[in-house]
């Protein structure tokens, strides 16, 4: 890994000529080319429905590209399924736009599933959860069920789950959509710190203020077509 917090020219992920047409004919992405380098802190902006989430879904393999090639951490994601896809996903953390929390499990358990899936033992799991919850300001909510949390609190649980296993690649889809300015700032500080520690971070975000403050690299998606706003360094 090259110097903390700075992009190297090692490739973390790349999309080559990727298009995505959904089954109902909607266009998600239109011939997108993007290279994400190790250590990048990349912001993706664009109007609602432009294709930002689709871009991230390509990277974590939730949708398959209609054409083109998606490569992440040296693996072609296109046709990955089952155990292989699972193993790739363990090497990334994802904050989902709709949180994706398990309804009947407590906050603690929701975060633990990631660690358990990766084979951490119980002591290690316990050791990691408390500080992570602390970090996102939810120390007192560990025994709550998702439906007992406010929108922003649920969002922060999703963030905690994405970073608890210290993945080398972090994908965050609107991680601050339901957060007040103070909390949003705090979360982005955390992401920035992770980036400094060598984690590659991709964030979709609407908030111009936050982008201005934190972005090192920004791309904009417009109706599926991608444009680089800040050139990669």
């Amino acid at each position, binding site marked *: 890994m090259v110097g903390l917090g700075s992009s190297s020219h090692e490739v973390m992920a790349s999309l080559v000529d990727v298009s995505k047409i959904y089954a109902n004919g909607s266009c998600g992405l239109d011939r997108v080319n993007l290279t994400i380098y190790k250590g990048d802190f990349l912001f993706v902006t664009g109007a609602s429905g432009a294709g930002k989430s689709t871009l991230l879904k390509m990277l974590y393999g*939730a949708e398959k590209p209609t054409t083109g090639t998606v490569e992440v951490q040296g693996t072609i994601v296109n046709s990955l399924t089952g155990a292989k896809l699972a193993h790739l*996903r363990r090497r990334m953390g994802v904050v989902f736009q709709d949180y994706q929390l*398990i*309804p*009947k499990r407590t906050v603690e358990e929701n975060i633990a599933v*990631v660690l358990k*899936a990766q084979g951490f033992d119980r002591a290690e799991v316990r050791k990691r959860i408390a500080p992570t919850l602390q970090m996102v300001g939810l120390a007192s909510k560990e025994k709550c069920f998702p439906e007992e949390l406010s929108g922003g609190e649920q969002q922060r649980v999703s963030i905690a789950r994405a970073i608890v296993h210290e993945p080398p690649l972090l994908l965050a889809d609107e991680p601050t959509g339901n957060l007040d300015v103070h909390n949003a700032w705090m979360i982005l500080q955390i992401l920035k710190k992770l980036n400094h520690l060598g984690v590659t971070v991709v964030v979709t975000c609407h908030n111009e203020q936050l982008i201005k403050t934190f972005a090192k690299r920004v791309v904009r998606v417009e109706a599926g077509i991608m444009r680089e706003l800040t050139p990669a360094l």
Partner: protein
Amino acid sequence: MIRRFTTQSDYLLREALIGLWRGGWMNWAAISTLTALLFLLGLGLQVSTQLDGALAKLGSQLEISVYLQPKVRAIALEPKLRSLPDVLQVQSIPKEVAWEALQKELGVQGDISESLGGNPLVDTLRVQVARPTVVAHLAQQIQSLQGVESVNYGSEAAERLGSLQKALGWAALTLASILGISTVAVITTTIRLIVLSRRKEIEVLQLVGATPLRIAIPFVLEGFALGLLGTGFAWGLLLVTGSFVEQKRQEFLPFLAPEPIHLPLGLILLGTGTGLGVIGSLLAVRSALREN
């Protein structure tokens, strides 16, 4: 590696238990339908063996009367009849004995055979048959033996019992298959619905990098546990019903010996219950994994 394995088994078992615990009424629905259907299945099997036994017993009391030709003696035919298949017992009745009995019955004093020009009767044999279904065939066989004048086997009653047994066999088979099919349908449905209610969990687990196998195992264990519990309850119900039926039997059908509820039946139910639980879970979780 071993460490990893024990850690994972620990998690998987715990998850299965938590799943059972949190499943609540859904589990009870699964267990109760499974119980009801296994109980019916067990009852069907038990009743059919019971009826089989009872009919066999009734049938075994059937016999063929063999009337010999005037000059032929019963003793001569007895070994031949004994050697026929499905023959349980053969009893010879010499005509002298029969004649004496008849005279006694009619209240005749002294010997009247002389006035009749000798004993008018013939030797007879009584052949006890093992199964009612073969009586007719056996009678025919005996009829064709040399020295046999005629046979009489209360043909109607024997035939009726025999065909009743066959018909009941058919009915039992039909019922058992219908019950089997409904059990499979209900259990697959119920487990599929359990999985459905936890679809979000499966989806999230997939998204955070749990392998399909790891996701499936707790569900399969749960299915196994549900099957086990269902079988247990069904078995208990069967024992209770059995003792109740036994009581009724002593009241109404004291001449039938009871056919006790036996272990093989339990094993059949256990196999069916847990097998269905496991297979149902596997199929359900597999379809849920596919969908996401």
